[in-house]
């Protein structure tokens, strides 16, 4: 866009720097992938490598063949992401629409109620004690789904801003004159016209659920069948830590700890879907970041 003569040197310079940056970004993923297709004996003698001496698909075969646990965790991740994303976007849109109606009595107080949660929070200890002690989400699917990520003030504020700036209020008034109720206006006007922001916030919340491991860490203690894929990976790390500190581990732990190549394969399988959908969702996700920056 700003090319002119005598700039070849500058272009060469910035492209070189950026290509190095891209390599630094890609290499770690490549190492992860290479480790997952390296033969286990080579892994043990030579360690992880970009150029393994011997390839093997055994890790992936192991995942497909014998690990019901991995499929189960994957299923939990998918269910959480699907349910969580829809619930998150719907809840936020339902809160954002009233806040976008300027003449709604009490709107300021309602906005403050949402907004204050961004400034002040109780932190982990009281949250944990309340979700566990009062609502008993421990070792239930709710423990994975509800705490922390189901609805955030941030999403509400972003969606509200979009509604106020992009949907003209006259549309609502015309619909009211035609006799449409508020719920009808919400489903027939607000949701369809707000689609761009809803998809954007959906990518954020989908990613948050796909990547979440904290809820499983806090709220899933005994019932390991409720682990998502991140929790499964995390569990293998803690078992390894235990092993290195105690020098031994229980047979239950040993059974839960697959070979290193398999661990890397599970990690790769956990990020593969993100890689696959990234090209399609990048636009929305990036939009969310830049729009969000304007508002704090």
């Amino acid at each position, binding site marked *: 866009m700003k090319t002119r003569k005598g700039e070849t040197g500058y272009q060469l310079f910035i492209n070189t720097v950026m290509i190095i940056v891209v390599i630094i970004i890609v290499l770690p993923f490549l190492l992860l992938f290479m480790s997952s297709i390296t033969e286990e004996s080579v892994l043990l003698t030579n360690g992880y490598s970009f150029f393994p001496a011997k390839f093997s698909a055994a890790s992936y075969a192991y995942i497909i063949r014998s690990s019901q646990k991995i499929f189960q965790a994957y299923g939990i991740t998918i269910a959480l992401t699907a349910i969580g994303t829809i619930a998150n976007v719907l809840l936020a849109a339902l809160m954002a629409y009233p806040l976008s109606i300027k003449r709604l009595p009490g709107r300021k107080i309602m906005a403050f*109620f949402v907004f204050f949660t961004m400034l002040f929070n109780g932190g982990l200890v*009281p949250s944990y004690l309340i979700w566990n002690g009062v609502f008993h989400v421990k070792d239930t699917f709710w423990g994975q789904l509800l705490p922390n990520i189901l609805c955030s003030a941030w999403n509400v504020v972003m969606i509200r801003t979009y509604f106020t700036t992009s949907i003209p209020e006259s549309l609502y008034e015309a619909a009211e004159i035609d006799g449409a109720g508020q719920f009808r206006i919400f489903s027939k006007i607000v949701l369809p016209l707000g689609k761009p922001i809803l998809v954007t916030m959906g990518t954020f919340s989908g990613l948050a659920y796909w990547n979440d491991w904290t809820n499983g860490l806090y709220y899933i203690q005994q019932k390991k069948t409720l682990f998502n894929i991140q929790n499964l990976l995390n569990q293998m790390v803690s078992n390894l830590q235990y092993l290195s500190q105690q020098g031994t581990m229980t047979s239950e732990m040993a059974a839960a700890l697959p070979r290193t190549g398999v661990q890397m394969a599970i990690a790769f399988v956990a990020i593969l879907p993100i890689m696959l959908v990234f090209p399609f969702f990048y636009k929305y996700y990036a939009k969310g970041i830049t729009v969000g920056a304007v508002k704090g």
Partner: protein
Amino acid sequence: MNQTKRKGAASLLLNVKRYWPLYVMFIPGAIYMIINNYMPMAGLVVAFKQYNARKGIFGSPFIGLKNFEFLFKTPDAYVITRNTILYNVVFIVLNITLSVIFAIMITDTAKKFLQKTYQSMILFPYLMSSVILSYIVFAFLSSDNGIMNNSILPALGMSKINWYSEPKYWPFILVFVNAWKGVGYGCLIFISNINSIDLELYEAADLDGASRLQKIKYITMPFLKTSIITLVLVNVGHIFYSDFGLFYQVPRNSGLLFPTTNVIDTYVYRGLMENNNIGMSAAAGFYQSVVGFVIVILANWIVGKFDEDSTLF
């Protein structure tokens, strides 16, 4: 404003009657926020209590400031506060500097498709969970299998390092990992800023014979100034909070590394879940919430001085 729309001068009551479904829509999210956000705020009182699981937060007996006394008598209180703040300061300075530099380079790239590739690639690590980060870092640093100890250090003629038991390396590792993950985020913000600059300004500067650096200094940077200041202040507002995953997952919760990897968030977690020390954990959490709140308010107030549109409230 909206005078035409207000012609009926509808009374408050009429408005409420007309809009009542809006309140109904608001309720589900509000209930969630009461449970997830407001009840824990009230639950902060647990920091002043001797917590007893059977009696619950509100039924447990008060013990005044005992938990805080214990907390601030340990060296931990100092270490976690120092680590939290120092890491955040380095993260803010480094990430924003790199973001600005890469954003300028990316927008200056002549080929559009390369621009697009760079800017999407640089964001990609930002989408990784910290569990994945921990696996990636482990592939490099594992004592037995890591590529550092097996290939890179031997090639340089250096001896192996037990990365997960040597705290001194971790400030560098964590700063690097955090930059690797986070630079793309800031970069995207600055790219969209630079793209909004009127191209005529650059053309005029070209006519005046301005050099590349002069254009950056006199056109690009002044345009980015507000965003940079805002982003710095927003991050400063969170200076008492850390990315729990970065400090818990990436060092793999290794006890030997705590001197340089323990931050308030990891301390609170371990007190609650691993060491069964709810009192001190709650005190540290209370300390974080309250000091964090004051800092957010201050930072936001200063943001308002620079750019009113960027304030949170």
